[in-house]
């Protein structure tokens, strides 16, 4: 059952979805390519559209993957899969007044988790850079992609430009350079 597969996949991702949406990209990538729902380049476009939509990146990506794979019902079960673990855990914490952020086990779990989350995002960046030819054999095409990448990163870190404008500008550059 395709819908059940989508639901259980995102249910699993929902349970480990720590550290802001970007850390989940390698997990989503592995699962969608394993199931044959999408390839890595198609997933890059998903992330782009998720980034252009309001709301959290990981949830948006899940909805988009669900929709592309199994239409509206796919989108619904993907969103439910991402939501249910959070709902379940919040209900437990809120019911028992568990002081989560003061608990020593929670603190030390996050001590181990934070650098791993960073590693996951770096891995995602390298994977996506390779798939989308941002790094590779040097020719005009790769150099121009590397240029857009460097410009975008500079705009994000130094100018603190909002991601939505960075995406818009790179889209304009894409049309100028590659049409």
């Amino acid at each position, binding site marked *: 059952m395709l819908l059940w597969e989508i639901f259980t996949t995102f249910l699993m991702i*929902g349970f*480990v*979805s720590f550290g*802001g*949406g*970007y*850390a989940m*990209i390698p*997990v989503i990538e592995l699962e969608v390519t394993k199931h044959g729902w999408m390839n890595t380049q198609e997933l*890059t*476009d998903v992330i*782009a*559209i998720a980034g252009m*939509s*309001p*709301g959290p*990146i*990981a*949830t948006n990506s899940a*909805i988009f993957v669900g929709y*592309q794979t199994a239409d509206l019902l796919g989108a619904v079960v993907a*969103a439910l899969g*991402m939501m249910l673990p*959070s*709902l379940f855990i*919040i*209900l437990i914490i809120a019911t028992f007044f568990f002081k*989560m*952020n003061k608990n020593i086990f929670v603190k*030390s779990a*996050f*001590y181990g*988790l*934070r*650098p791993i989350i*960073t*590693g*996951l*995002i*770096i*891995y995602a960046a390298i994977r*996506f850079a390779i798939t*989308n030819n941002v790094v590779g054999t040097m020719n005009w095409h790769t150099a121009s992609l590397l240029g*857009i990448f460097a410009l*975008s*990163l500079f705009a*994000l*870190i130094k100018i603190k430009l909002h*991601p939505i404008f*960075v*995406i818009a*500008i*790179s*889209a*304009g*550059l*894409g*049309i100028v350079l*590659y*049409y």
Partner: protein
Amino acid sequence: MQQEKAQTTKQRPSWTFILQIFLTFLKIGPVTFGGGYAMIPMIEREVVDRKKWIKPNDVTEVFAISESVPGAIAINSATFIGFRLAGVRGAVAAMLGVLLPTFLIVVGLSMLFILVKDNPYIEAAFIGIRSAIVALIVYAAYKIGLTAIYDKTTLTVMVITVAILFFLHIHPVLIIIGGMGVGILLVQIRKKLGIFTAMDKEESKQKAEIV
């Protein structure tokens, strides 16, 4: 006030109140771009300043806990606030409210994308966008790295993670769960040995000041 009565007397909250929670979070959804964090000030303004459902101190705690729970911080915070206001039904109402507009917009954009993706202009634009997405991911790593990587241990763990992902093909979910386990184990062992562990950047700074 109606909602305070519902909370203090532990009566079943009325459906009109549940609907009010749903509509409040529905309104927050569509005006925020750029990930879940952009929603946080909106949620705060709505439930603390306007509706006075939650005290400022409490909402800070809600955000702190929501960050430690898996999932998007905005959706988690909404769910948490919904639960405080009206139990499980409040939690579900708030969650659906905050999610629904985003859901519809993403589905709408997905439909649009499938229609236009073969257009040569769109294809060219997306070649550019994909490079920007790589930059966005690097930027996300940079931002989280600023607080997550503060000593040799955290740096080593990060490098090992990237190496494992590339060369050993272990499922990232297992790495995440394993990392939490290793964190707990490491801190416990070091405690037994009497070694202090700086468990976040703040503690690391404090430790540096003491030494």
